[in-house]
């Protein structure tokens, strides 16, 4: 009851947007890319936000502010479109994650060794923004962990996803800002969510 009250008070679509200024940035291993000004969601889209556009969306109680996943690329694109936004291009995603200086991780150059979920194999979701270290130079959250994110780019006949998950089996944890995977856009995966961007002035 109390939880429902607070959820009611929380504006479901009050997604904070972060300004990314126009200018060059280092993409990949060193290519300089120039982008115009855009804004990007500070957090990944949550279950609660997704439900405002797709009322039939179901999720478990207590996961209102977990990042939404198990959605196709088209559904992600439709959500952004309904709010007058779109999915980010891979370059836009990467600049928001690493800033202009070409850093390997959103927080700097060193891999975060503080394992969040040791001895566990599989997806672990938390509320968006849970990880206080996973913050990009522009203040964008969860770009090296949480869930992978759909982008507008294509590669190998699939859609490019950027980002990473909290925890894998033994050997990998926290993605670099340059990492990418290619995902069949019609598939739904527990590890793929998204955030939106806007080019509005």
């Amino acid at each position, binding site marked *: 009851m109390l939880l429902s009250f607070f959820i009611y008070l929380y504006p479901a679509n009050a997604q904070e947007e972060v300004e990314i200024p126009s200018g060059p940035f280092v993409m990949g291993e060193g290519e300089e890319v120039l982008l115009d000004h855009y804004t990007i969601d500070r957090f990944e889209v949550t279950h609660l936000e997704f439900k405002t556009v797709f009322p039939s969306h179901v999720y478990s109680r207590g996961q209102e502010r977990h990042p939404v996943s198990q959605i196709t690329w088209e559904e992600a694109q439709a959500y952004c479109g309904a709010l007058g936004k779109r999915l980010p291009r891979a370059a836009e995603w990467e600049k928001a994650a690493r800033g202009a200086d070409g850093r390997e991780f959103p927080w700097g150059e060193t891999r975060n060794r503080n394992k969040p979920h040791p*001895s*566990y*194999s*599989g*997806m672990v979701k938390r509320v968006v923004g849970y990880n206080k270290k996973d913050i990009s130079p522009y203040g964008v959250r969860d770009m090296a962990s949480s869930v*992978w994110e759909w982008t507008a780019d294509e590669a190998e006949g*699939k859609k490019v*996803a950027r980002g*990473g*998950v909290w925890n*894998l*089996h*033994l*050997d*990998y944890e926290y993605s670099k800002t340059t990492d990418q*995977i*290619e*995902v*069949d856009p019609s*598939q739904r*995966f*527990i*590890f*793929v969510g998204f955030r939106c961007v806007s080019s509005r002035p």
Partner: protein
Amino acid sequence: MRVFTTLSRRYFIRRILLGLAALGLPLLRPGTPHAALNFWRSSEYVGKTRDGRYKDFYIQYYKSFKRIDGDAWRLNVTGACENPQVLTLETLKAFPRKKQVSRLKCVECWSAKAEWEGFAMADLDALVRPRPEAVGLLFHCADSYIEYLPLEDLRHARTLWVHRMNGEPLSDEHGFPLRMIVPFKYGYKNPKAIVAVEYLSQADRGTWNRIGPYSVDGTILPGYDHPLDRGKQRRRISGGEIFD
């Protein structure tokens, strides 16, 4: 004297706990290398092995079990369905056949590829008619292993009920007479040597998830693969089914 007794009790409790921890360690760290010999060869039992031909496709079982007699074997289908069944292997072999080549990736950091042959979930559904409240199947296996899979995953186009592998009947090691192939999930979500299935109206958990640090979902995550057919050379994967 009282101090001595207390210390002794503490000492023995600590030793017992350490002993139990040591016993449990291989279960919690299944990647630990183990003996290469197949203890089960020429015996009436079958169990985990990496010996001989199985060095190219490792065999993992929860517990060893007596080899199954295909003539006596039956698949018991119960739970939230209109028409529960006790099915023979011959009945299942008569279902429309479907073949696919797919890679099985184990959460223990190896994978191997094979051609699998069997039938689709739709054929079992048509026979037993699951009730509307059914959400998944609980598998009971000959090695005392239990696994749960949601109907959505079982009805996926790449999920297969398998009774043949590489053009031959399944070997005991690979799950004779019936196993699941769910190529977008880690191996522990691909139950084998199935003896019974139960339609459930609420999601459940499986053995590995109950006793080890493995997720209920079991989807292959983006990360690395170590294919046995490529000398276990590490390669990046994007998650979900590995198609090559």
